[in-house]
């Protein structure tokens, strides 16, 4: 069966001369009126079968709307879907813009920034043990950006070739991490505003896509990067948790598990540090 709930009222375009009546031919008109009933002549309507199908469709729609069927998208649209999609598209666009139109070698900058400006992300209430993350990208913040602008310029390395394969892998990593940041931000937002199972499912689907990219990166030379690999590993774990728990409505314990993983791994701050677009105030500097 098609999805009747998605059908918009059909509008036929009759054209500008829709009301213009053409000359009739009574003989033809009589003949065609007699012949027409034989065209696509209907068979007997299978009433019972159709009624059963209608009832089944109603039950399925009701269950899906109530979030009782794992993996089935509810007919009503989540109010978070559009803002999340727009946010993701914007973030990806900014990332691509900054990466594509920036002098080569710039992608290396955030790591250097992180080393020189390990300040606290004010969007996170508590970020424990950030200094102990050996080998990982240390947390930084968007607020630290004004202090880092000059440092960014200092650490640019013009000797990095734009066709360098390692740079290409890093570009791919940045795209994936941008998506991951948008996803995790959406996850946190959904947790604050609404505990909607439909949103959890959508996040789960989105998470699967990001997880695929993350695993591809882990298997690529980007996964050999000593600074990137721990971050990708931690991201993979959290994504798996989100996906695993998205098949059913999240209760408080489920969410607490994911929140704890996000907090203890400092995931969002580390991603923001790794993604160049996450550093505010650099666009005008380029």
């Amino acid at each position, binding site marked *: 069966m098609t999805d*009747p709930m998605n059908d918009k009222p059909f509008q036929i375009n009759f054209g500008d001369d829709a009301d213009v009546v053409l000359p009739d031919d009574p003989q033809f008109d009589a003949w065609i009126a007699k012949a027409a*009933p034989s065209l696509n002549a209907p068979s007997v*309507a299978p*009433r019972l079968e159709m009624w059963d199908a*209608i009832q089944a469709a109603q039950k399925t729609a009701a269950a899906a709307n109530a979030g009782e069927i794992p993996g089935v998208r509810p007919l009503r649209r989540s109010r978070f879907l559009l803002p999340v999609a727009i946010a993701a598209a914007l973030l990806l666009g900014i990332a691509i813009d900054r990466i594509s139109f920036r002098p080569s070698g710039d992608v290396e900058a955030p790591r250097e920034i992180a080393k020189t400006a390990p300040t606290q992300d004010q969007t996170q209430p508590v970020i424990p043990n950030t200094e102990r993350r050996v080998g990982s990208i240390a947390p930084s913040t968007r607020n630290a950006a004004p202090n880092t602008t000059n440092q960014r310029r200092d650490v640019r390395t013009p000797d990095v070739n734009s066709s360098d394969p390692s740079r290409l892998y890093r570009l791919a990593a940045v795209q994936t991490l941008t998506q991951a940041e948008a996803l995790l931000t959406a996850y946190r937002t959904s947790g604050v505003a609404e505990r909607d199972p439909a949103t959890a499912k959508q996040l789960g689907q989105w998470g699967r896509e990001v997880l695929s990219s993350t695993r591809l990166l882990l298997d690529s030379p980007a996964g050999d990067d000593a600074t990137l690999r721990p971050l990708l590993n931690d991201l993979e774990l959290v994504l798996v948790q989100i996906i695993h728990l998205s098949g059913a409505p999240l209760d408080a314990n489920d969410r607490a598990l994911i929140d704890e993983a996000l907090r203890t791994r400092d995931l969002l701050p580390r991603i923001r540090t790794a993604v160049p677009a996450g550093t505010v105030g650099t666009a005008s500097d380029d």
Partner: protein
Amino acid sequence: METESTLSPERAHQLADQRALVERARRGDASAQRELYESHVERIYRLTFRLSGMEHLARELTQDTFVRAFASLDGFRGDSAFGTWLHTIAVSVSLNELKRRKRESARAAPLDEALTMSRTAPLSDPVLRERLMAAVNELPEGCRTVFMMHDAEGYTHEEIATALGVTTGTSKAQLSRGRAKLRIALADLAEEWRP
């Protein structure tokens, strides 16, 4: 279209009964929904069959029409007959789906199926029927829909106008244009209708 002031007492009573039935269905009464279904399914199925030409598709479109109607009963204001409202949904669902399918696949396959699915054949010559069906399928969407509803299924221009959201003048003009196009397309068979 019927209005309250032009109705006979008997018809007004029928409409009042129907409103009560719709109200019960709106509240989720399955027996009321079944009653509405039984009252209208035959005509809706015939219409979707005429428009689609395929039994399995007509079945899906009929089901979709009722599923959508029952889910949208809150939007039924009751200022027209339930059947009229249902036909509007059926036409919308059918044309949307046919347009979607047309985009996805070539027209030839459904046409072949449509021809083989015709159960009755007042046109004794299969070649003639095939030519006619092919010509009908070549008509612009508006002409074809109005032609099938009026000439094949016997809807009045008022009913067609309501279902398509146009004036009766447009419905009449589209029928006239459709017939004229068919006349041109079948010009070499003129001996069939000339005395």
